């Protein structure tokens, strides 16, 4: 019995994909399904009771604490994503269309590898009561008392998260803009488009996918981060991420935590839909072009 070359090739590629696919099945797909299952079970004194019910969802949805922290988490994520994309876009634009070498780009990517905690700690040092911001403002005579509200507030979380997300957002925007060739921009200019029109009618629609993925990645990473808000956010900065994490660490009600996690994921999907619709309404997405 001999196999044809084609069959052997198919067998080979199947064998090559098998280890990774089994790994993903065992450690990603099945655990995620298990988590979904947990969310419909209940836990009493650390023992999980596998009877189907939706109590966890009802309990979470009716808890004011969950919504308050959920809003904090979402607003952390949204502000971080907006700031990261809007502030990184000009930098990415310069790197792609103007800069003669890639030194700044490499320098920015290098900072991505400075540890996550270093940045959190750095901002704690900078924003603190005796931190750099307060001492500088006092030295210049702009304030007499140190500003207490900066550190341990949602603002401190957002500043830090933006700092953490910048290299990531920039990388995605740069690779999106690299696909928008200068020829298109020149063609638009030749046809009489203003600089602003080139931006809104050519660059943004053509790099739409990159912009959406930059926004969504920074949003997901920031909204799902429970460590930065815990270390910098103070009492008002507690997010539902921390609530979920606590269910799986100290409090020990895994089914409740799982239900919270799936509700949070649903909220994330909602933000995605909202953002893409917003881009459409603002006529920044590709597809049918409007000519005013």
């Amino acid at each position: 019995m001999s196999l044809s070359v084609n069959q052997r090739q198919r067998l080979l590629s199947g064998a090559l994909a098998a280890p990774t696919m089994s790994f993903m099945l065992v450690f990603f797909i099945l655990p995620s399904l298990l988590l979904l299952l947990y969310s419909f079970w209940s836990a009493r004194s650390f023992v999980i009771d596998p009877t189907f019910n939706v109590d966890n969802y009802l309990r979470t949805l009716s808890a004011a604490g969950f919504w308050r922290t959920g809003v904090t988490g979402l607003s952390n994520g949204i502000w971080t994503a907006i700031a990261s994309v809007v502030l990184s876009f000009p930098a990415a634009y310069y790197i792609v269309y103007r800069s003669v070498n890639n030194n700044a780009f490499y320098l920015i990517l290098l900072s991505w590898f400075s540890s996550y905690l270093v940045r959190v700690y750095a901002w704690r040092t900078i924003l603190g009561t005796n931190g750099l911001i307060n001492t500088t403002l006092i030295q210049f005579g702009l304030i007499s008392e140190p500003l207490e509200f900066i550190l341990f507030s949602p603002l401190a979380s957002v500043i830090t998260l933006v700092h953490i997300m910048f290299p990531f957002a920039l990388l995605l925007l740069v690779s999106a803009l690299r696909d928008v060739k200068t020829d298109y921009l020149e063609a638009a200019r030749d046809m009489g488009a203003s600089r602003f029109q080139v931006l809104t009618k050519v660059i943004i629609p053509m790099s739409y996918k990159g912009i959406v993925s930059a926004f969504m990645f920074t949003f997901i990473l920031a909204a799902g981060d429970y460590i930065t808000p815990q270390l910098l956010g103070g009492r008002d900065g507690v997010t539902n991420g921390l609530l979920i994490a606590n269910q799986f660490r100290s409090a020990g009600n895994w089914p409740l935590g799982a239900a919270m996690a799936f509700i949070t994921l649903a909220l994330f999907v909602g933000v995605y839909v909202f953002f893409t619709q917003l881009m459409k309404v603002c006529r920044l997405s590709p597809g049918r072009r409007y000519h005013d």
Partner: protein
Amino acid sequence: MLRMYLWLYVLFLYAPIVIIAMFSFHSSPSLVFPFEGWSLRWYEQIFASQTFRDSLWNSIIVATGAAVATTLLGATVALALIRIKGRAREIIATICAAPIALPGLFLGIALVSGFAQIGMNRSLVTVTIAHVLYALPFFVATLRSRIDYFDTSLEEAARDLGATTWQSFHLITLPILRPSIVGAAILVFALSFDELIITVFVSGNESTLPMMIWSMMRRTVDPTINAASMVAFGLSLIVITIAGAIFWLQRRASISSRTSDLEDEANEQVDSTVEQRKQSVRPVQSFE
């Protein structure tokens, strides 16, 4: 103006890191300006700590293990993606990319439930598995452009000329993928070395470096945290620099081998003409 903006952007990214680096060499425990002088005392103190040395070592082991495992899994699946077409390819690629679209928190709690279900005790092994799951999408994404534009006819040509499957892999496919694989493996090391959000859920008694720094940060404001963070950053930096050097050397080697081939061919005939042209150009340049 955009240029200035770009440098402000870079400044914003680096200023906090530079401040922490400075305070890690500060001679007084105070974390505020004015700066009082330099010393290595915080580094001495942190390296004297057994917990710190253990955590650092654990992190290195986990990151190395994650890099090796991710490279094996990622490279084999990349080879499969080169060959498979159509729907199966889409499914495999989507599964490999999916964890990147989920918050680390979700991966962490899913894994901890999974490990509990199959009765796996939390240890450095579970941490390594978690890091592989977290890093694999980044690995595959890094190789993506090489996979998408890989010309399978090169392999076919090799086999038509009598190469075995192993030979065509060894002589054709691997050399094309190798630079990206090395880069991606080092990226995985750096990602794993810094991972905290998932690690929190899946680690047992042995802590990693970020876990240790995190617990220090929750307890106190301690200047040794600066030094510990700088050690973590320094190590990532070293790994990245090595990666950059390997990448650069390989590219230079491939370029110079290509140009030297061309030169060998052309040398005999063109040598004299080039020499003449160079001489005729030189006066013009000096004139300017």
